[in-house]
């Protein structure tokens, strides 16, 4: 049972107070001109996921708190949550570092 702290309202609670929203920082390619997006790009956006064993950036919703979405960095093997940050924030440096490994 993960213990999660919302970076917006500062509420700390069980994972059941939150809702998981999958990988973070996925770029939606269609915003500007959907017709120019190739089938592969659309597939990558919809279905292809990094799914790392290790540091993972993901979305969570503070469902029973402030109702806001935010990002968390969680290790998918140890379950350690090392950071939570705003939904509008850029991917943190440690995530890029982990991705290169």
């Amino acid at each position, binding site marked *: 049972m993960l213990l999660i702290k919302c970076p917006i309202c500062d509420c700390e609670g069980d994972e059941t107070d939150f809702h998981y929203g999958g*990988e973070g920082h996925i770029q939606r390619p269609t915003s500007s001109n959907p017709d120019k997006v190739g089938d592969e790009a659309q*597939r990558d956006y919809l279905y292809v996921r990094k*799914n790392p064993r290790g540091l993972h950036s993901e979305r969570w919703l503070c469902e029973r708190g402030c109702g806001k979405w935010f990002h968390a960095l969680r290790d998918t093997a140890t379950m350690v949550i090392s950071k939570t940050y705003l939904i509008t924030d850029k991917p943190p440096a440690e995530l890029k570092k982990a991705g290169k490994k």
Partner: protein
Amino acid sequence: MQKYSIFTLARNAANYHKGWGLAWRSPEPKSEYDIVIIGAGGHGLATAYYLAKRHNLTNVAVVEKGWLGGGNTGRNTTIIRSNYLQDESAAIYELSRSLYEGLAQELNYNVMFSPRGLFMLCMTEHELRGFKRHAHANRLSGIESRMVSAEEVKRKIPILNVSPTARYPLLGALYQPRGGTARHDAVAWGYARGADNLGVDILQNCAVTGITRRGGKVTGIDTVKGHIKAKKVAIVTAGSTTLLGDMAGLKLPIESVTLQACVSEPIKPVLDVVIMAGTVHGYMSQSDKGELVIGGGADEYNNYSQRGSFPAIEHTITSLAELFPIIRRLKMLRQWAGIVDMTGDRSPIIGKTDVDGLYLNCGWGTGGFKSIPGSGLVFADTIANDRPHPIAEPFGLNRFAEGRLIDESIAAGVAH
């Protein structure tokens, strides 16, 4: 191969069972194989077995980072059924189910396939309509599957709560008479013994660290025991598919999540069939040992830890305690989890990849155990002939770009 039968058992008993030898060898890796299969779970072992048995390809290795059958093959709730809605799913699961029927004899290893009958309960009008559609589709596909009345369900499952105060009314059930269970470990062991006997090398404790390629073609694998050359390589590593795919530069529509199950303490028989209840998300059967085997939906977040979170178990048990009030006084004996691949449409991926000579069989989600024989058979055929087996063809990786999804979600509150 030492034959297993009541007679050999009796003969060995006279000798205090000193005569039994290895069920499979523990060979050292050769420097080169025609085909290397990564992952000695049920699917990988079945693939190797059928390559040897049906395609006469025996210069084959199955490499495994741990012990054979140590992944999801030994961590599921052993349910076997084929009453799927979409034609493509029904075809592969029914092929698989029908192979289970004769598997003990084929492998000379008792996998204890027990077609005790499987009931998928309908508790809302919507669910009832959905399952009626299943029954019609199944019948025309040649799968024995039909709707039964609430009264018939109650007769078969006397411990089911059908009181007027029950939260959801029982409206009937989709019934597959030849659905059931099998002994999961025995399936892995039986295929391992069969494949080994036909000359396949099963290399346990041989983790793969790389997949080598040259000019868009696979050339072999790096392992903790050194490099192994291979003309063809197949990835069959449920739960870890992304990690292996990364080694070959594959971009995969997969997420790894935990799927949990638990058992009660053993009791004398109270449940002779398999029940699945989608509305409340739970399923239950009773093992031959007497334990009630309980499962539900997958956990929601990506997880490689092989331990699930308690809320999923709690949700499932709460539901089943409502359907079967007598279980409240029983005790939970064990809980465990496996890591399953979830694809974009919750259906598997079987087939070739963009890398020449590299094949993929993954994404079985919650349907892995029941599909082992069929998956192995069509995958072996696909590898041997370097083109998709007709039953495997719809499950190619290209479907995600085309939008040709195979979605069973219509009645998939619980996908088992």
